[in-house]
């Protein structure tokens, strides 16, 4: 029942997002507006509890939801046979670039932030650990 009520809330907010997005001519797709509205509404327990249950279920099976679109690749076989290799190369390389830039960016921030925090908070012990790790 909880999950069902959660799904009802999700659909209500998606519809509200669709209405608001189209009505005001916002650049976001309807579900994105719905997500932003939901973010505001989650402070209320009536919404939060059921939505949490449903969201956990839905998001843990997120990859299944991409299957129907993915199978659609079969309708673009002519494009695939003509440009398939080049398109795949573009996708693979640019995905690796995106992954690397994001991870290195955040890892860099973490390291510089960590060092300052650790030195400040825990002083000698953590510093020694760090040195041992680096050695």
């Amino acid at each position, binding site marked *: 029942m909880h999950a069902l009520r959660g*799904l009802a809330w*999700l*659909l209500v*907010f*998606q519809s509200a997002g669709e209405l608001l997005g189209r009505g005001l001519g916002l*650049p*976001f*797709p309807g*579900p*994105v507006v*719905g*997500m*932003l509205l*939901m973010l505001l509404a*989650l402070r209320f327990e009536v919404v939060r509890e059921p*939505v949490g249950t*449903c*969201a*956990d279920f*839905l*998001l*843990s099976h*997120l*990859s*299944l*939801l*991409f*299957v*129907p*679109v*993915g*199978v*659609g*690749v*079969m309708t673009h076989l002519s*494009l695939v046979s003509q*440009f398939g290799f*080049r398109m*795949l190369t*573009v*996708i*693979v*390389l*640019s*995905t*690796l*670039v*995106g*992954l*690397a*830039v*994001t*991870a*290195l*960016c*955040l*890892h860099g*921030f*973490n390291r510089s*932030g960590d060092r300052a925090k650790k030195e400040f908070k825990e002083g000698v012990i953590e510093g020694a650990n760090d040195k041992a790790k680096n050695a």
Partner: protein
Amino acid sequence: MPKFVELWVYLSATPLFGLTATLAVYVVAQAAYSRLSQAPWANPVLWTVLVLAGGLLASGVPYPTYFAGAQFIHFLLGPAVVALAWPLWQRRAELRQRWGKLLIAALMGGLAASASALLLALVFGLPLEVILSLAPKSVTAPVAMGIAEKIGGIPALAAVFAVITGMVGALAGKYLFDALRIPTTYEGWAARGFALGTAAHGIGAARALQVNADAGAYAALALSLQVVLASLLMPILLPLFIRLF
């Protein structure tokens, strides 16, 4: 034999077929994936898509017939995007504390993925509508379709590119992060997950979630950030990019 053929023709034309086939193949692929201790190459989305597309092509069932059933699963993408508010809400304290850094990482990663795709596609001489469909490929499929439509790409193609991107991220992420020496500490998992959510959206996030809970939470966070950033910035930035070339 003719009885069987008649039955098959009937069954394959009802929506029940597409829905059942999708769920059944996915459940088997998921079981095999856990059996193989979640090896990246055993990715359940990849194998489900390959088996279904191969099966449909071999049996001559057209895609629209399949989609008539599969649309019930496809439909849930919308509520799933709304549900992304949940991981954002759960991590709101952390988000408030580190929002500047996370926002910069999300922007840089998203821009890098999109710009490198556009430039490579130009170098390879791909047609313009293909190039435009490649631009939003780091964003989760339903949103990528919306963006592609706005900027003049082909929505269906954009969705397929997004799915392939997600699979590439889920397959290659671990090896890339190991090569880059991103650690497997809490902070390291956060960076790995955040990168997967940024560059490989829902499929990358699903992979992150299976490997590590912290990575999964950060992936969901990155995925929702990317959705907002991309739908806000892409319709503005892409026309500028096109005018440049």
